[in-house]
C-alpha cells in the first residue's frame, strides 16, 4: 500500500522535475523551434571554407545586402561570375593539365570543375567561347538560417553596430557546407541584446532594443 502511494507521487514528481530540466538546459537538449545543426544539401557544393577561409574573401564581398538592407541576401550568380568567368577549376588541376600539356606538346585543354559547370549552366555561360550563349535558369539554394515569419530581423542594423557575422552564424569560414550553429530562439536574441546594452559590442556602446516592437510587427 505504502509503496503504491509513494510510487504514484514519486513518478509524478520525477516527471515534473525532468520537464523543468528539459527546458532549463536549452543548449543540451533541443527544444521545439530550435534548428541548431540544420545542414541542408545545396544545389552547388560551394565551400565557404575555401572562399572565406583559405581565400580570405570577406563576407560582405558577396553578401552585399548585409550592410545596406534587411537581408544579407544570397549573392546573385553574376557575383560569382566576376571571378569564375576566368577561374574554371581548382588551381592544381589546371596546373597539372598545363604540365601534362607541355609534356605532350599540345594546347592545354580547358578544365571545368563539376561544380562550376552547374554555375555556368545556370547563367548560360559557355566557358569554351567565354561568352554567355545558352539559356539561363535560376539556382534554387536551400535556406539554412530562417527565423519565424513574425520576426523582423535587419542585417544592416546589426552589421553596422559592429556585430561580427560569426556571432550568430558561427565559424562559417571553417565549414564546407553551411550549418546552423546557434539556436535562433527568442531567448537567444533577447539575452544577446540585453548583454550588449550593458557591455557593448566589441567595446562599442550600442542601444539594442528590448521592446517587443524591436522585432515583432
Amino acid at each position, binding site marked *: *500500500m505504502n509503496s*503504491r*502511494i509513494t510510487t504514484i507521487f514519486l513518478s509524478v514528481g520525477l516527471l515534473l522535475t525532468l520537464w*523543468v530540466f528539459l*527546458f*532549463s538546459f*536549452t543548449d543540451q537538449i533541443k*527544444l*521545439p*523551434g*530550435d534548428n541548431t545543426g540544420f545542414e541542408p544539401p545545396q544545389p552547388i557544393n560551394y565551400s565557404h571554407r575555401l572562399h572565406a577561409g583559405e581565400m580570405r574573401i570577406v563576407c560582405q564581398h558577396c553578401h552585399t545586402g548585409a550592410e545596406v538592407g534587411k537581408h544579407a541576401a544570397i549573392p546573385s550568380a553574376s557575383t560569382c561570375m566576376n571571378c569564375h568567368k576566368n577561374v574554371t577549376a581548382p588551381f592544381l588541376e589546371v596546373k597539372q593539365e598545363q604540365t601534362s600539356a607541355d609534356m605532350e606538346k599540345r594546347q592545354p585543354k580547358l578544365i571545368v570543375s563539376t561544380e562550376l559547370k552547374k554555375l555556368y549552366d545556370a547563367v548560360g555561360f559557355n566557358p569554351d567561347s567565354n561568352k554567355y550563349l545558352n539559356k539561363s535558369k535560376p539556382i534554387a539554394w536551400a535556406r539554412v538560417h530562417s527565423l519565424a515569419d513574425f520576426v523582423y530581423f535587419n542585417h544592416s542594423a546589426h552589421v553596422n553596430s559592429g556585430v561580427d557575422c560569426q556571432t550568430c552564424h558561427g565559424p562559417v569560414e571553417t565549414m564546407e557546407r553551411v550549418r546552423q550553429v546557434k*539556436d535562433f*530562439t*527568442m*531567448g*537567444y*536574441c*533577447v*539575452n544577446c541584446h*540585453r548583454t550588449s546594452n550593458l557591455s557593448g559590442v566589441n567595446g562599442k556602446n550600442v542601444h539594442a532594443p528590448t521592446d517587443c516592437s524591436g522585432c515583432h510587427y
Partner: protein
Amino acid sequence: MDNKYSILREPLVLGNKSIAEVTNDIAKPLEKKSSKLWWICFLTSLLILSIGMVAVTHQISTGLGTWGLNNTIGWAFDITTFVFWIGIGHAGTLISAILFLFRQKWRTSVNRSAEAMTIFAVICAGAYILIHMGRTYFGYWLIPYPNTRGPLWVNFRSPLVWDLFAISTYLFTSLIFWYVGLIPDLATLRDRTTSKIKKGFYKFFALGWTGSNKTWHRYETVYGLLAGLATPLVVSVHTIVSWDFATSIIPGWHTTIFPPYFVAGAVFSGFAMVLTLMLVVRKVLHFEDYITLHHVENMCKIIILTGGIVGLAYATEFFIAMYSGNEYESFTFINRALGPMSWAYWIMVTCNIVAPQFFWIKKIRRNVVAVFIISIFINIGMWFERFVIIVSSLTRDYLPSSWSSYSPTIIEIATLIGSFGLFFTLFFLFARFLPMISIGEVKAVLSYGKNGEQK
C-alpha cells in the same frame, strides 16, 4: 456533540435506521443493475454534451466569429457561463467546508453530492476558459513555465492569470477534499461489494482503509484543515473572478462592491443548484429519509439570506452610480435598466429578487415541487445577472460611435447547452458509481435529534 441527545431538534435521519441499514440504503443503488431511469437521464445528457462538442469543434476549426461577438462586445455567453459555473461550484464547498467548521450536522447528507457538483461545475467553467480563447491551442502560455523565449514570463498583474491560479487551486483542493471524504466510504463499499471489478476499483482508491481509530483521529484533523483552507479559498476564488471586471475601466464593470456581491451571488445560485439536483436525486434514489424536508428548508433559508444580499448589492450599485455623479457610470446603469437590453435586466430582477421571497412562507419551503421550480428560476436569474453585467455594460461604454448590440448565434447557444450536458453526464456517472451520501458521516449523526436509545 453536546446536544446529541436533545429532543428539541428534529432528527436528521428519519425512519429509525440502524447503522447497518444506513450502509444498505446508500450502497444499494450502486450494487443494483442501473435502472432504466438512470439510463434515460445519462443518455440524454450525453446527447446534449455531444451537441455541444459539435458546436465547439466547429468554433475551434472555423474561428471565434462563429459566436455573436463583435469589435465592441468581446465577451458574452462564454464568460457569462464561466462565471455562472464557478458560482454554482461555490455552494458545494460552502456546504462541505464552512458548515463543517460551524458544526452544522445537517450538512452530512448533502455535502458529498454538493462537493461533486462543485468539481463538475469547475470543470465546465475551465472548459469555457479554454474555448473562449482565440488560439486555444496556446492556452498553456498562461502557465509560467521555463521556455525558449528567454526571460519572458506571464503578466501577474492580469486578473486572468489570477483566475488561472484561483481556479486550478480551487479544482485541486475541492478534488482532494472530496476524495479524502470518500476514502472511508470506499472502504465500506470495498468490503461489501461482490463484483470483482468493482472490488478492485474500490480497493485501489480506498488505499487500504481499515477504520482504525488512530487513523480516524488524524483523518479528522486533515479534514478539518482542508475545510479550514477551503473556506477562505472559496471566498477568494469568486472574489478574483469578480476582479476580472472590477479591475477594468468599463463603467458597469468597474465596481468596488463586486467581491462580496459576487460571493453572495455564487452561494445563492449554488444553493439553488444544490436544491435542483438534490430534489431530483432524493426522488430517484429514494433518499427521502436522508435528505429530509428539514434539509430543504435550511437551504431555502440560506437562499433567502444570500438572495437578500444580492438584492442589496443591486440597489447599492445603482445608488453609487447616481451618487458618484460620474456621467458614464450613471448612464450605464440607467441604460441597464431602461436601455435596449433592459429585458435581460428585468428577468434577472424577477428571478433573483422576487422569486426567493416566496421562501418566507414555511408551506412553500416544505413543498418540494414549489422549491424545485423556484430553484430553477434562481438558476436562470443568476445566469442572467452575469449576462447583464458583462454584455449590457459592453454594448454602450464611452464613445457612442462604438456602441453596438449583441445577439447570440446558434453555435453559442449549442455550446451553452453542451456545458450543461457535460455537467449532468459527470453527475450521473457519479451517482452511479460513488455513494451520493457520506455513509460514515451519516452514521455519526444517526442518533442526532433522538434520545439515545438505538435498536
